[in-house]
């Protein structure tokens, strides 16, 4: 079976985003961009299923500007067989991305679609669920374990009280959590090999999806900074502060 993995190019997770002084957005000029960490886990899972003989082909897909091709090269260096870039300069919201991914899924006919559970830039956590809804497929979000048994996939999910396991008939959409796996390191030979793999570029406008904005960002601002605290000398001083100054205990 074929697995489709959606990957997003985002600010590197080690970096702290800075808000532009005009309050229009965060400043990404000259900032290091990387693959969304959750998406790396999604690629790794698909590649492991291929290595286990469950999946026959792993197709990575990314949506956005031409530079997303770099993110797709990384996905292929991790082991994806080929890639699709849906190219657009439009401001994308999760619903747009889900609709474009549906168009790609309609063409590619995968049995499993893997996505990260959220992107670390917009922190929306919507795209996988929206894609599943548009395809009318079952979904398993926040996956920490995935096993395919014949025509179904069993997914253990991280929920508020602990874990739960679902069985989904294929085809299905799975969004992955951090504990699903540890992505492998990209090696130089795998990067060289990835250069020979194919990226098909599809202009977004050929997919018949309206990208008209559904939300409008009025303002982006810095969160209120916390006032600098103090260091206390010992436990007795800490207890004194908590009791008499902050009065929380």
């Amino acid at each position: 079976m074929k697995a489709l993995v959606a990957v997003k190019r985002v600010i590197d997770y080690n970096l702290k985003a800075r808000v532009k002084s005009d309050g229009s957005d965060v400043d990404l000029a000259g900032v290091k961009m990387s693959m969304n960490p959750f998406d790396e886990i999604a690629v790794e899972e698909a590649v492991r299923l291929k290595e286990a003989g469950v999946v026959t082909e792993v197709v990575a897909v990314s949506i956005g500007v031409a530079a997303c091709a770099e993110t797709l090269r990384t996905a292929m260096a991790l082991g994806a067989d080929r890639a699709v870039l849906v190219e657009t300069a439009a401001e994308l919201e999760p619903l747009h991305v889900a609709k474009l991914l549906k168009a790609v899924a309609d063409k590619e006919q995968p049995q499993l679609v893997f996505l990260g559970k959220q992107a670390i830039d917009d922190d929306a956590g919507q795209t996988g669920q929206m894609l599943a809804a548009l395809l009318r497929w079952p979904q398993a979000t926040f996956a920490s374990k995935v096993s395919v048994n014949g025509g179904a996939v069993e997914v253990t999910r991280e929920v508020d009280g602990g874990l739960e396991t679902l069985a989904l008939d294929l085809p299905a959409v799975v969004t992955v959590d951090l504990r699903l796996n540890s992505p492998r390191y990209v090696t130089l030979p795998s990067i060289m090999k990835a250069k020979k793999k194919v990226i098909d570029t599809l202009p977004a406008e050929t997919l018949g999806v309206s990208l008209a904005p559904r939300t409008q960002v009025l303002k982006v601002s810095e969160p209120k900074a916390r006032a600098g605290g103090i260091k206390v000398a010992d436990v007795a001083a800490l207890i004194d502060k908590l009791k008499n100054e902050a009065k929380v205990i």
Partner: protein
Amino acid sequence: MTTLVIAEHDNTSIKGATRAAITAALQVGGDIHVLLAGHQCSGAASTAAGIAGVAKVLVADAPAYAHPLAESLAALVVNLARDYSHVMTGATAVGKNFMPRVAAQLDVAQISDITAVEAPDTFVRTIYAGNALATVKALDAIKVVTVRGSAFEAAGDGGAAAIEPVPEGPAFPAARLVREELTKSERPELTAARVIVSGGRGLGSGENFHLLDKLADKLGGAVGASRAAVDAGYVPNDYQVGQTGKIVAPDLYIAVGISGAIQHLAGMKDSKLIVAINKDAEAPIFEVADYGLVADLFQAVPELTAAL
């Protein structure tokens, strides 16, 4: 203008995140209806009817809703949603799971994890792990919104809403629950606790977390953890506080052996008072801590527990 709030419950009580969503709905204005899907959930229905500000409680009581599966819950909500201006729920694991399905089926955007209501169509939410605040206007006719529980007070009791049954929505047999493995704890729920004692990699082992258990018990608090502690297997994943775990804002957050990575701060930096205990004086956690103690946690935590 009427808001539909989808409730999360345990068949008798209503979750704090739902009460916070009701408070957010009150700020939107207009009437509030609460949808309760469950099985044998009449206790929760009467609790919901008693929440101040709720005008009507819609109850879908059927075996299909004994467990909140996203597919069937979303289908039920979509059947009702077109009569509402707003559809809201708590940004919990359940809410985050089914709500985007509702939005996509309605062909509208979702505004996730809001921290403030500016106007009926304008909301504030955090982006980039809490490093920026975005004020977002929803342009679609139906506003689908999930609400950050720690950012709104829980709606209290004092209401007397009518309870009305609603028919079951379409079934979705392609998804089934196999089993649940829930963490048992006597302590308050992490997202509702007034005090949280959180441990990180510095604890060194799962056994050492008992030091934090004792301190939390003395303070009547909950125990949380950083991702490093969860990944190392010291505690279960549902203890995790951070961008990818739970977002908390207790009165007192005590971070023990936690360095303070961006992703952890995203989950706790709105706490009213932050205390850090760490032997590394340069740890970033000290930049957000109101009171910092540079000390070996294995000495400081027992000493603190004994002195309380």
